[in-house]
């Protein structure tokens, strides 16, 4: 892997951009950092699903579990 950065133009809808900006503000990071994190998470989830694992959200207090279906 290399530290060399590559640049691209990203076309987002107004609402997608609003979410991106809100996340960047909430997490106190740049919009690039949010997108970088999203790519990492997407790759990690995809790798685990591809070997048969499941992605589950759990609410211990409410004793609820929900499996996220990723298409």
């Amino acid at each position, binding site marked *: 892997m290399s*530290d060399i950065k590559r640049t691209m133009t990203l076309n987002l809808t107004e609402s997608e951009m609003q979410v991106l900006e809100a996340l960047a503000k909430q997490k106190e990071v740049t919009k690039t*950092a949010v997108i970088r994190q999203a790519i*990492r998470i997407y790759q*990690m989830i995809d790798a685990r699903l591809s070997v048969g694992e499941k992605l589950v959200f759990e609410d211990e207090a409410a004793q609820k579990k929900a499996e996220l279906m990723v298409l």
Partner: protein
Amino acid sequence: MSTIPIKIYQRLDKSVIDAVLHTELAPSVLIDVEREWRPIRLATARELYSQGRSGEIPQHFQWDWGAKSGKLQLLAYRCLGIECAKKWQGLLMVKLTGGMARLDPDKGKDLVYIEYLESAPWNLAVMVETPLYGGIGSVLMRAAVQLSYDEGFHGRLGLHALPQAEEFYRNDCEMHSCGPDLSYENLPYYEMTRNDAARFFSNSEGSAI
């Protein structure tokens, strides 16, 4: 893979010598390291056990960097290492995604999570009579803080510590103990806030990277 010249402490003559920090190791390096470190770790564990000193057996003696190397296929993981005298003197694996600060003022914000940190066996007093190099852990922790800054995480770090390593994280790194984590084998969770990171970075200036 980028490299940064650093200084480490040579215990024999108490001198400071040149070393290199590698900021992105390939999986093959971890496999090679494990091949070299594992026999020493296991021999130490066997020796201490035979002497009835089981409590002194390094709690990381069963770690396997080779087995961990597969994680580096994912962007979320990165491994850093210190090289000196043509040998790897310490390794650090971090996860850049999914770790969230538990402490104020940044609760819920991203941090760099320390997965594993190990100094080479010949640098540890429990493994050899005369350890070669010192300060390896501190240099790697400083590198982790730098990485956290580079990621835009303001120096925040989080980790679960083995009991034998708690003193290092609490005293040397001045991290906050958040107590045992039931969701992580009851290991104590430690966190470095942005304020801790600024202090640690400034205190370790000149002594590490």
